[in-house]
């Protein structure tokens, strides 16, 4: 199910939150309703953690993560790093990396198996992404845009990419990522998909400007209608149990 919400009059949900199958990060500030919408959807299943990164609220664009790990930019403070390490499940590796392109959320799009990165990312960063997130890394562009994290939203079930992506690019990316892809928009025609929404295997959150057509495209490409969180989380249950004792 896709939920529509706003962060302080802004519809850019993917900027102020980061969702994966094992945790959800939410920016501090904004009204309580932003946080409580996430809590209402996710609280029984995965932890919802309020945080800032480098003192800013644009956490979704600064960090990249999946169920295996979370990568943070060098601007993250020690307190924020410690807070995240404490709040997230133990098997999620939280790592701060030195990378000139510090908006990791804009440069890396990933699910639990594969990641697309900005073509100019340094070798060491690429290796960190492969190690920490446990994924296969591909350097690529989307619709000739290097900021792959901004222009696509990816989950293990499907992906939504920039509307001007050509059919050949769609096929190529789909083969690389091994998930069905659709070119579309979010938030009433905004092309910046990664900033406009956030998604995991059973739920998605998008801005309140998103039209009904866009929501139905999102629900169909990410297969959210039949999704049951319990089925997915049960697979991870054994490793999650440790953190809830």
């Amino acid at each position, binding site marked *: 199910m896709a939920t529509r919400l*706003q962060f*302080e*009059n*802004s519809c850019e949900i993917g900027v102020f939150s980061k969702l994966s199958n094992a945790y959800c990060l939410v920016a501090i500030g904004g*009204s309580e309703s932003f946080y409580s919408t996430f809590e209402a959807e996710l609280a029984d299943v995965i932890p919802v953690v309020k945080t800032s990164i480098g003192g800013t609220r644009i956490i979704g664009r600064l960090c990249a993560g999946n169920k295996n790990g979370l990568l943070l930019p060098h601007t993250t403070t020690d307190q924020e790093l410690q807070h995240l390490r404490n709040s997230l499940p133990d098997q999620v590796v939280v790592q701060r990396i030195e990378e000139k392109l510090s908006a990791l959320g804009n440069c890396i799009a990933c699910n639990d198996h594969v990641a697309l990165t900005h073509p100019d990312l340094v070798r060491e960063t690429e290796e960190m992404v492969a190690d920490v997130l446990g994924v296969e890394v591909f350097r690529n562009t989307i619709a000739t845009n290097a900021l792959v994290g901004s222009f696509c939203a990816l989950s293990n079930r499907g992906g939504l990419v920039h509307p001007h992506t050509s059919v050949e690019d769609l096929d190529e990316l789909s083969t690389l990522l091994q998930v069905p892809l659709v070119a579309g928009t979010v938030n*009433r*025609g*905004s092309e910046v998909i990664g900033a406009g929404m956030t998604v995991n295997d059973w739920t998605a959150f998008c801005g*309140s*400007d998103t039209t009904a057509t866009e929501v139905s495209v999102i629900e169909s490409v990410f297969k959210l209608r039949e999704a049951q969180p319990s089925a997915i989380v049960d697979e991870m249950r054994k490793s999650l149990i440790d953190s809830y004792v």
Partner: protein
Amino acid sequence: MPRRPMRHRGLVISRPLTFSQFARQSAARVASVYTAKRQMHTAEVLQKSPPNSAGNKSVKNKLKAKKEQSESSSSEEEFDGNVQVDFAFFDPKADDFHGVKTLLQTYLDDKEWDLSGFVDLILEQTTVGSIVKIEDDEDNGIFALVTALNLGRYKDQKCMTEIREFLLKVSQEDVIDDLRSLLGKEAHSVGLLVSQRVTNLPPQLLPPLYDGLFNEVSWATEDEPTEELKNSFRFKFYIIVTKFYKLKTAGQKRKHSVNEEAIIYLKPEDEIFHKLSSWSFEFSLNSPQIAPHELRNYQQTGLVMSVKADKISTFQQQLQSLIEEP
């Protein structure tokens, strides 16, 4: 009546001075426009500059002086900082949604309200209202917006109700009755004058922009299809919601700051409106402020004022002379 877009030249600096969040956001949106235009216009600038250079020299010098204070970006260092740009005024249309929404993000400070509905309202009213864009621009960046919305005509819309609530909440004791009557029984003759733009828009555009708006209002009183709609543009009052910078240390004796003004207006026409207003009040802003270094002693404050419609021609004359002075 169909209106041809009016063209106005302006010299625009590549790196905008941004004072506020909304300007920063809109500057980010148009940053791509500047780099694209640079390639297209540098060839034209060389041919165009001789006839314009005399008239625009003073503007160019002012812009050059400001250039030192703006952020540097390594990709633009070889660029001298001036771009020849043709601005055009267009009627509002549905495609402009995102640009207009960005300009209006902080209209009601940090209140969560139906901003999208408000933007839709503005864009549906094609007879009165102008949007300033660059001629033939692929990116469709919005630089400025001006419109007048009749409070009575739209009073049942959710966004209008929220605006009324907000204004009544932040108003002061002495003007609340005036405000209440304007929002209540007089609403059908009150226009909400909405004017937002990127901070560094060349001021030469302002007189034609406002002249255009007030002309449209008077044309609408004749051209609208129904009597009701014609009457809805016979405004007697305008309400304006805007912001300005006020000196923070108002209580202390200002021995050193003889040259510091108590109030700095973000938009030059606000000063004229404020002088001509029947009443006005200030309200403090909750949203986070990022003030540039020169304005570190100033606090950004909201301002609401009401101007009688018969003062408008005075306003237009004063605006013209304010902009024209060297």
